[in-house]
């Protein structure tokens, strides 16, 4: 139970960062936090029905569910792609406006 609460706090922390932080880089890092929380939650859920790693050596039984792990492998790579692309966009904004602060960017782009 405690690990689920910690994951929930991690998720909320990421969401709070996206909502309240004014720095674009901090928003992107918060996006990563949400991604990590969801990934760990899935792996945790899959690990509830077994004890061993899903590598079928001799005499291994009761492995954890490998399906969420394979799914999260995909999610991690997609997360890296999203992060890289959004960092590139943030850098483009910085080059155009000279700041990472979202309000100043809005001021300069909006006029």
């Amino acid at each position, binding site marked *: 139970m405690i690990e689920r609460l910690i994951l929930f706090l991690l998720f909320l922390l990421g969401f709070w960062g996206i909502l309240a932080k004014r720095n674009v880089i901090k928003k992107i890092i918060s996006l990563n936090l949400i991604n990590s929380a969801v990934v760990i939650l899935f792996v945790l859920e899959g690990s509830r029905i077994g004890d061993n790693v899903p590598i079928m050596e001799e005499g291994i039984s009761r492995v954890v569910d*490998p399906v969420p792990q394979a799914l999260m492998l995909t999610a991690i790579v997609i997360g*890296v792609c999203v992060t890289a*692309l959004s960092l590139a966009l943030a850098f483009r904004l910085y080059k155009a406006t000279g700041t990472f602060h979202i309000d100043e960017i809005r001021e300069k782009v909006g006029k």
Partner: protein
Amino acid sequence: MLMKRSLILPFFSLFLVAAVTLPVFLDETAWPESSRNYLEAEGVRESGARNLVSAIYLGYRAFDTLGETIVLLVAVTGTIGILKKAGAVLEEQPDFALPGEKRQSNFMRTHLLETVTGKLGPIVLLFGFYVMLYGHLSPGGGFQGGVVVASGIVFLALGNRGDAKSHLVRQDVLGRIEALAFFLLLLVSISGIFTGGGFLDNPLKQYTSMPAAFIVLLNIIIGLKVGAGIGVMCIIMLGKE
């Protein structure tokens, strides 16, 4: 009013999201065991990979992997397109350099980078290929090995001297490796058709006693693709040639 006005709306949204997602996080519904039981009994025989995670993402769900490599390709293309117009991230900070260093290609270097990264790079590359090649037997696989290879490429890019550059850190070479790996992936994907199977079917399933060779081949191709893709993204952000 105690708190700043701009924080009221975020707090409200945070409360709403917490109310919606808390049941998801604390859900104690029993996890279904049927897929685990089936994979435990049949996974090794059907795919040949002892690592069941590899068996899923390169055997049962290889379509997902194909789509994911396309997403990676799109991300790399977008990053290249955006950063080529905006310029490299680090190229305007020549004050971060060894004392007395005048060569433009050698800024952004310290003694630590000088001694560690260039020597560690090949070892990290070797480890990446090990993770890639043994992905069907042990923890690892194409994606994990590819990311390790990408960090080895970044080490090489940070550590090599201006006059002894590895070709592996050049953007055009890495871009070609990625494109070639994607082409090979498509070729391997349709190879199952010629033996009477479907798209992404394992063509070796009924002909040899080692169907894992297909998984190994896919792992190598995906590892090359992920390594070259993430490596080229990092190198473009570094602003190296």
